């Protein structure tokens, strides 16, 4: 369907003119380099708990002998560094590796072949990497992950000169349509991409029952402490994540820095990223963070096993 309003689809978040990304290619900066190796594999991924199931997936992993990871391994860097990623396609189908906003090579890596991608990370933030081939099928099957770029020097600031934080979290949110996409694509069938009715919604690959208990996903801290949450929407549905107990400050929306503004629900468009600063308001109290749209709160209809986690005040 053609969205005639596409060019004017604006939310408050998007109306802030994105701040110009000032290139941080500072000549005087000594660039660090890091390298990663990713393997592309077919396998399975399990959403635990009621409503959960084992889903056939394709994913990136950092261990050629292990199952694919959903999401894939986190690639970490700092402002101004160079990253090399060696991607080995161990799957029988062609795949690629594209970091939105950082790389442009979309050419397929044939089955049982490999390719090296080298890119710089001038701006701190969070980026989606994924397989962009096959009309979103490859990404939907689990081929996605995040690149986290921190401020140079290792300080707990969002970027050089940016606001500070006490803790950081990464949330890769995603969705899968098991019966119509994963079950079909994994057995060599052709997915009807015009129909997408995802029935699994995950945060860091976890259903809500797990994500609410996962210390690496939960937000925590004492009163006044601030968590920087980097959010990547690797799915195909836009996500509106509502934070109970306090407003946050949105600092990145639609993958672009914005003038910070108060927010209790952050909308992350499919394929885009966001960053928020969330301060703890209440000591020794617990609150949910959850998506605010019907079926996305569930795992195949089982409530709260969808996209959700907790805020735990110390």
């Amino acid at each position, binding site marked *: 369907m053609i969205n005639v309003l596409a060019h004017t689809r604006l939310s408050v978040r998007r109306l802030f003119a994105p701040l110009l990304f000032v290139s941080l290619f500072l000549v005087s900066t000594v660039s660090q380099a890091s390298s990663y190796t990713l393997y592309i594999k077919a396998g399975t991924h399990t959403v635990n708990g009621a409503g959960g199931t084992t889903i056939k997936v394709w994913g990136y992993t950092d261990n050629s002998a292990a199952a694919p990871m959903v999401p894939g391994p986190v690639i970490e860097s700092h402002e101004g560094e160079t990253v090399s990623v060696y991607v080995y396609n161990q799957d029988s189908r062609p795949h690629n590796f594209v970091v939105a906003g950082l790389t442009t090579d979309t050419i397929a890596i044939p089955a049982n072949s490999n390719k090296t991608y080298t890119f710089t990370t001038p701006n701190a933030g969070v980026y989606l990497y994924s397989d962009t081939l096959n009309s979103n099928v490859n990404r939907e099957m689990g081929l996605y992950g995040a690149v986290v770029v921190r401020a140079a020097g290792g300080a707990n600031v969002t970027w050089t000169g940016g606001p500070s934080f006490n803790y950081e979290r990464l949330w890769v949110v995603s969705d899968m349509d098991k019966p119509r996409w994963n079950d079909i694509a994994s057995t060599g069938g052709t997915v009807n991409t015009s129909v997408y009715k995802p029935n699994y919604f995950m945060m860091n690959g976890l259903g809500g029952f797990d994500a609410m208990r996962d210390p690496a996903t939960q937000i925590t801290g004492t009163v006044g402490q601030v968590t920087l949450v980097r959010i990547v929407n690797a799915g195909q549905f836009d996500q509106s994540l509502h934070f109970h107990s306090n407003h946050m400050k949105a600092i990145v929306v639609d993958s672009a820095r914005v003038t910070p503004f108060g927010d209790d*629900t952050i909308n992350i468009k499919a394929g885009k990223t966001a960053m928020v600063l969330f301060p703890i308001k209440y000591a020794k109290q617990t609150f949910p963070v959850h998506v605010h749209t019907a079926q996305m709160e569930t795992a195949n209809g089982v409530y709260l096993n969808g996209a959700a986690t907790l805020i735990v005040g110390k």
Partner: protein
Amino acid sequence: MKISIHTLFLRIRGILQAIATLLTSAGLASAAMMGGGGAVATAANPTSGIPVVNATSVTLVVQTVNKVMHDGVNVPFWVYCQNGGGMGGGGGCPVAGPTLQLGVGQTANIVLNMMMAPQEAAPYQGHTIHPHGLDVAQSEDGVPETGAPVLGDTYTFAVDAQHVGSHMYHCHVHTVKHLEMGLYGGFVVKDTNSAGTLLNTINHGGPTYDYEWNMVLSTVDPAYHNNNAVGDSTVFADYNPKYFLINGLEGISSTAPADTLTAATGKKVAFRLIGLQSVNAIFQIKNASGAAQSFTIYNDDGYALPSPITTTSIEVTPGSTTDIMVTLPTTSGTWYPQISYKNLRNGGGYTNGTVYNKLVF
């Protein structure tokens, strides 16, 4: 909180309050009048009949309301209803609960009375009120999974001036079902002066308006409303909205608008867009020939923006609110404030997915 003597007390008190309500017919009428206050502008909900009620002292019950949609299909809703208003005649309360209103410096005291409330079986029995965006403590947050009582409760909290603007409230029991069923409403925080009078400023210390128009956005997948669609069900694994509402009304054409406001020329109108729908939504104001009019956005999620933004189109995403203002022309005319609902995947539209309001000046 566990079921306790406190809860038992609340239940008994709730029953007594319900009985008291049944013995008086004053509830709804007094609520509608309470929306005023000396400095507050007129016409909070022009024609949709949703009352504006002070949150400092209000009792809500939950009722079943059956609505016949434009295609003749009957859809059951659950709605919050003030003091049982609408019971026993008149077809019940409207879809979208009363707009709750609270001044800075005031304390909300909202009683949820479960007397005769329709509900699901365990583990999703009962109802709560989640004051969404009010940033309340866990004990007032209305989330059963973190201990909120589901068989009646009193919600007490205050807000600071940062919150002057629009928020919302909704049931947080089995939200995938209960929000869809209609258990929601707008929650508006207002500035106050030194005498405690509510002011018609768009945000703390912000510009004033002459009229305010609350618009609660929601969508309806009738499959979710089916009496058999309860508990953990694969019905809730998919969402296919068929009906699209503003203030509980369809308004599928400009000649059959959901809500109509008549205002004086040259005056300022505040629109409070309250996103309780489960899909994306675009708000625009168009004139009789379809040209989009400019308006200015002041608040996002009830917090003042760093600086106002003037535009002709704004997306209201699920769970968010937006407060905007527009100055009417000095010559008379008609505008059509409207919401176009869009799917979450690619922004595609829906059949009858645009809901029209009418603004006559």
